[in-house]
């Protein structure tokens, strides 16, 4: 009898991976939905169990097939990956719970079983990227999640959806291939693919040009997947034309996982000393993220499509996470990590609210949303609370992470960065207010006047997420506390 508890890390990956083809074999709309839903929540329960175990007894190392690392592939759940796994699986599960009515409306019924299978695959890929301790495995899981998200995006009703998916595919593949080149060069230098083993063998002081090239390729590759400002061009179209459920899921998770992989890359392999002292990555990150925050937020103000508006806001928010990494301090890194979590909740919640509008009004253009606050009060309220979180108003989750980033930028002796963060929040006020004003204070459009409130099946999960953004804005033990632990873990690990 195999010890069940010790097998939890692999179950987290295998369960959705195996269920995906089962969904395809089963076919049928309701059955596959229930199956996918059960599996998604199981994965969340497992990741929660793993996180609790990590907090009690330290990192979990799972050797696949009992092959000892570095020969075999190793799965590692530590403070950081456990935290990320937890919120990714939570959002995966809650978005799926919320999505039934929206999926029914936006995706042809004959394709539903394929949709659920692809959704599970996407979740597998994202979780796998997070849990694996093997560098090549990261690439494989990145491609699993990417390929399935291209397919998911192309399911959008708009005829522009396939082109948006293809554009994402082209850029995403270039990014993934860059990562692959970097992995190859690292392998060439060390002869191993296990991340911890590479870190032990890599001579970062005398790595020379190969090391530099590997670092550059992997950084740029991940930047493309993260949609960092100059490499963001795939994101607005992909988020705008994807089905609402897909947008909510991908916007909440996909880019964060790439940020996570980037943190792992710097702290787990190349060491912060190489990235920030030998190479000027910290200044580069600060510059890129600040420019990105300003340009993306300004672009968001001028959008007439709310989905596109939020997509540009996402590009800006990625900037805050990178800002945290670029500050090179425990506080900054913790701020970045907790912003990953908070932004996942906030953006997930906002896109879920948008999905409700899309269901009842049939459009997410600002013009059509006019006056929806009267006919869809609950959805509008949820959007407003989420929007406040996006700005970073006190008592919302967004405030916590921005506060952490602010204080650590003062500590790092960069008050100008803090000042620019505050100014950039004003831009967020403008674009969030623009939507809120349209919802509450404009004359109702025809569609909005006829709309009725979204069904409970969507509202309840929506409010779970929105409530979470408020809860984690007040009670920070779990979010900020865990992020702080993770950041300390990374820093001490790096010093060894």
């Amino acid at each position, binding site marked *: 009898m195999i010890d069940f508890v010790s097998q939890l890390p692999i179950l987290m990956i295998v369960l959705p991976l195996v269920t995906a083809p089962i969904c395809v074999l089963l076919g049928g709309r309701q059955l596959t939905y229930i199956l996918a839903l059960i599996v998604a929540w199981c994965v969340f329960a497992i990741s929660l169990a793993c996180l609790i175990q990590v907090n009690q007894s330290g990192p979990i190392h799972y050797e696949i097939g009992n092959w000892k690392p570095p020969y075999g592939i190793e799965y590692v759940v530590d403070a950081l990956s456990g935290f990320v796994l937890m919120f990714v699986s939570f959002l995966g599960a809650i978005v799926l719970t919320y999505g039934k009515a929206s999926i029914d409306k936006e995706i042809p019924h004959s394709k539903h079983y394929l949709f659920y299978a692809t959704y599970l695959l996407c979740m597998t890929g994202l979780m796998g990227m997070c849990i694996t301790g093997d560098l*090549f495995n990261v*690439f*494989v899981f990145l*491609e699993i999640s990417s*390929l399935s998200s*291209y*397919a998911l995006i*192309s399911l959008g009703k708009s*005829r*522009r959806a*396939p*082109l948006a*998916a*293809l554009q994402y*595919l*082209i850029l995403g*593949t*270039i990014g*993934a*291939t860059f990562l*692959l*080149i970097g992995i*190859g060069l690292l*392998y*060439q230098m060390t002869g191993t693919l296990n991340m911890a083993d590479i870190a032990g063998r890599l001579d970062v002081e005398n790595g*020379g*040009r190969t090391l530099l090239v590997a670092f550059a390729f992997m950084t740029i590759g991940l930047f493309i997947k993260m949609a960092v400002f100059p490499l963001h061009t795939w994101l607005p179209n992909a988020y705008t034309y994807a089905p609402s459920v897909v947008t909510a899921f991908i916007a909440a998770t996909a880019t964060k996982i790439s940020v996570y992989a980037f943190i792992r890359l710097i702290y787990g392999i190349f060491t912060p000393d190489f990235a920030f002292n030998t190479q000027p990555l910290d200044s580069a990150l600060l510059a890129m993220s600040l420019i990105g925050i300003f340009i993306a937020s300004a672009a968001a103000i001028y959008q007439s499509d709310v989905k596109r508006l939020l997509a540009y806001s996402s590009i800006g928010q990625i900037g805050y996470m990178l800002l945290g990494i670029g500050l090179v301090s425990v506080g900054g890194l913790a701020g970045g990590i907790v912003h990953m979590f908070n932004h996942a909740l906030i953006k997930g919640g906002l896109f879920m609210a948008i999905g409700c509008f899309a269901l009842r009004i049939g459009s997410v253009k600002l013009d059509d949303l006019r006056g929806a606050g009267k006919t869809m009060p609950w959805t509008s309220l949820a959007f407003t609370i989420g929007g406040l979180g996006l700005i970073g108003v006190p008592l919302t989750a967004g405030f916590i992470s921005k506060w952490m980033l602010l204080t650590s930028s003062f500590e790092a002796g960069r008050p100008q960065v803090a000042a620019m963060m505050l100014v950039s929040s004003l831009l967020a006020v403008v674009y969030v207010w623009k939507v809120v004003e349209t919802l509450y204070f404009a004359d109702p459009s025809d569609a909005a006047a006829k709309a009725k409130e979204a069904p409970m099946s969507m509202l309840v999960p929506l409010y779970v997420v929105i409530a979470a953004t408020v809860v984690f804005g007040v009670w920070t033990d779990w979010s900020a506390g865990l992020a702080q632990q993770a950041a300390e873990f990374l820093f001490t690990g790096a010093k060894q």
Partner: protein
Amino acid sequence: MIAQMDIGQALGLYNYWVVIFLMMTGFYMVIARGNLIKTIIGLNIFQTSVVLLYVTMGKVKGGTAPIMPLDVGHGHGHGHDSHGHEEAPHHAADAADHTMLQHPLSGRVGEAEEGPASSVVDASGHFTGISEPSVQLTGFEDAAHSHADTAHQAAEAIYSNPLPSVLMLTAIVVGVATTALALALTVRIREEYGTIEEDEILEMDRTA
């Protein structure tokens, strides 16, 4: 570093030059071509260059495919399967057995009268070829020694690193999946817009 590299070295790295050439060709096609199919082809070339990069880094000079040679299983010394000049002494020993077998055999073939000549000649050729070193056997112990070494080397032959090739099998699968998905999307784009020129599609979106 490049300054120190002489032409011989630069040419010796020709695999890497090919990799870079392919990579840049593919990358350029992706960026510069507006036709979706050409973009996808470019993407494919770009991915393939990485396959070559990995396979090149796994190649060991003089290395062979990591497949266990047959005679390793037979143990040392029995040079029967590997034909080399140094192995002649043992061949001679084996040949002694063969003569016992071949004599009655050739005799039988000869009696059958069906194309016997060639096989007899073969057999006799075998004899002459072996009888020469068998004479030397007593005098040349070195030959026997060197034979033992080669058998050893056969067991510990130089192999190329198989891991990069295995990794690339995965990458090729990923590449195939990417291409398939990209082509499927292109089909749908063409159904929607009636063209696969990116400029025309964007123009149609702008006016629509």
